[in-house]
C-alpha cells in the first residue's frame, strides 16, 4: 500500500513538467508548413488559400507534395525568383530543372526565375531543361 502511494506521488511529480511542456505553444513563423524545416526565403513557395490564410513551403518539392492535398482550397500560388529574391505569381515564372540542388534535404533541383534570360543562363550553366509550371493546370 505504501509503495503504491509512493508510485502515485512519483507519477504526479513527474507529470507536472510534462503538462508544462505539453501546453507550450510552438511557433511556426519561418517554418515550412509541410515538414517544419526553417525556410530560406530565396526558395520559398506560398499558397494563398480561399479562406484568406497562407501556407508557406521551404521548396518546390514540399509545395508540390502539399499541392495535391490542398488544390481545392488554393486561390493563388506565389513563388520566389532565385535571381532577385522577389515574390512573383507562379503563372508568370520560368521553371528549370538542373543538376544544381538548392534545398538539400529534399534534393530540390527545380529552380524558379522571373526573367527568361536568368533562367536560360542557369539552364546553360548547370545542364538544365525547361519544366512546366507544376501548378499551372490546376490553379487559375
Amino acid at each position: 500500500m505504501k509503495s503504491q502511494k509512493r508510485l502515485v506521488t512519483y507519477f504526479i511529480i513527474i507529470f507536472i513538467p510534462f503538462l508544462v511542456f505539453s501546453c507550450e505553444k510552438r511557433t511556426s513563423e519561418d517554418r515550412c508548413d509541410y515538414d517544419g524545416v526553417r525556410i530560406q526565403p530565396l526558395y520559398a513557395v506560398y499558397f494563398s488559400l480561399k479562406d484568406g490564410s497562407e501556407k508557406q513551403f521551404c521548396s518546390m518539392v514540399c509545395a508540390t507534395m502539399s499541392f495535391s492535398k490542398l488544390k481545392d482550397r488554393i486561390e493563388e500560388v506565389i513563388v520566389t525568383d532565385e535571381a532577385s529574391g522577389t515574390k512573383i505569381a507562379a503563372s508568370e515564372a520560368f521553371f528549370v530543372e538542373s543538376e544544381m540542388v538548392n534545398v538539400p534535404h529534399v534534393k530540390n533541383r527545380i529552380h524558379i526565375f522571373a526573367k527568361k534570360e536568368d533562367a536560360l543562363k542557369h539552364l546553360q550553366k548547370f545542364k538544365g531543361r525547361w519544366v512546366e509550371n507544376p501548378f499551372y493546370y490546376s490553379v487559375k
Partner: protein
Amino acid sequence: MILNALSITMIFIGALSALLAIWGGISSLILYRKWGRPSRPEEKTSLEDRSYLVLLIMVIVLLVRLINWPLFYATLQSIISDIEGAMCIFGVTQVKPGLTRFLELLKPVNFFLIGGWLILHILDRATKTSPLMKRKLLLLSVLSLLVLIDSFGDILLILRIAPESLVSCCTTITDILNRPTRTTPESIFGPEYARPLQGLFFITHLALMGLIGVSLKFKIFHRPILVLLFLFSFLNAILFLLSQIEVFAPAMMHLPFHHCLYCLWQYVPDSILLFAFFSLGTFSVGWGFTTDLFGRHGETADLLPIYLRKIYSFAFFFLSASLIMLVIHLLVD
C-alpha cells in the same frame, strides 16, 4: 568520421563494452560448463568467487548498454548539422542505411534482453542458494555475443559516417503515398483509415492496461495469462507505432502531411518521454513473462509472485503515463 563529445563517448563505450563482452561471454560459458559439477570445496569457492566477479563486471557493462540505446539517438541527433541534406535523425540514418537500420532493430532487442536478464539476476540474488546461476551464466554468454555485435556496429557506424555526405531527408521517403504505414491500415479500414486506427489503438491500449490491472488486483500470474499479456503488448506496440506515424505525430507537430517520428522528437521534445514511457511499459510486460519463464525454479517459487507484481505494477504505471501524455497532447494541440 564526425567527432564530437557524443560520438567519442559512443566509440569509447563501444570499445570498452566489446572487450568486456568478449571476456565476459567466454568466462560465463566456461563457468556455465563447470557450474554444478561435483568438485572439492576449495574449487567450488574459487568457482563462486570467479562467477561473482564476472557477474559484477557484466552487470555494469549491461547497465551501460541500456543507456546506449538513447545515447545512440542522441549521437545521431548531434551530427545532423554535419550531414548535408539532413534535417532530422532520418537524414543521418541515410548515410549508412543498412547498418543503421540493423542497429535500430538490434538495440531494442538488446534492451529487452538485458532488462530481462537483470531482473533474473536480481531475483536470483534474493535467494540463498542461487538456483538460477546456471541459467544466468548461459543467458549471459548469449547476451554477450549480442552486446559484442551491437558495440562493433556502433563503432563501425560512427567511423564510417563521413561529414561531406549528401542525403535526402524524411520528406521524400516517409511522406510518399505508397508508404507501408499508410497502405496497410488503408487496406483494412479504407481511405478514411485515420480515425479507426486511432480508435483501435486506444481500445487495445486500454484493454492491455485493464488486463494488467485485473492480474494485479486478483494476483493471477499463470503462464497462459502472462503469454497472452506478452503477445497483446506486442500487438499494442505495432498499433502504437502505426498510429503514431499516421495520426498522432502529424497532429502533435501541427504538420498534417508529415509522418516522420524523428521530426516529432525534434519538434516536440517531450514526445521522447512519451515514447520512453511506452517502451518501458511494453518491455515490462515482456519482462514479466521472461522472469516467469526463466525464473521459476525451486527456491524462487515464493519470491516470484512478489517480483511479478512489482514488474506488472511498473508496466501499468508506464503505460498509463504514456497514455495520459498522449491524451494531454491531443487535447492541447
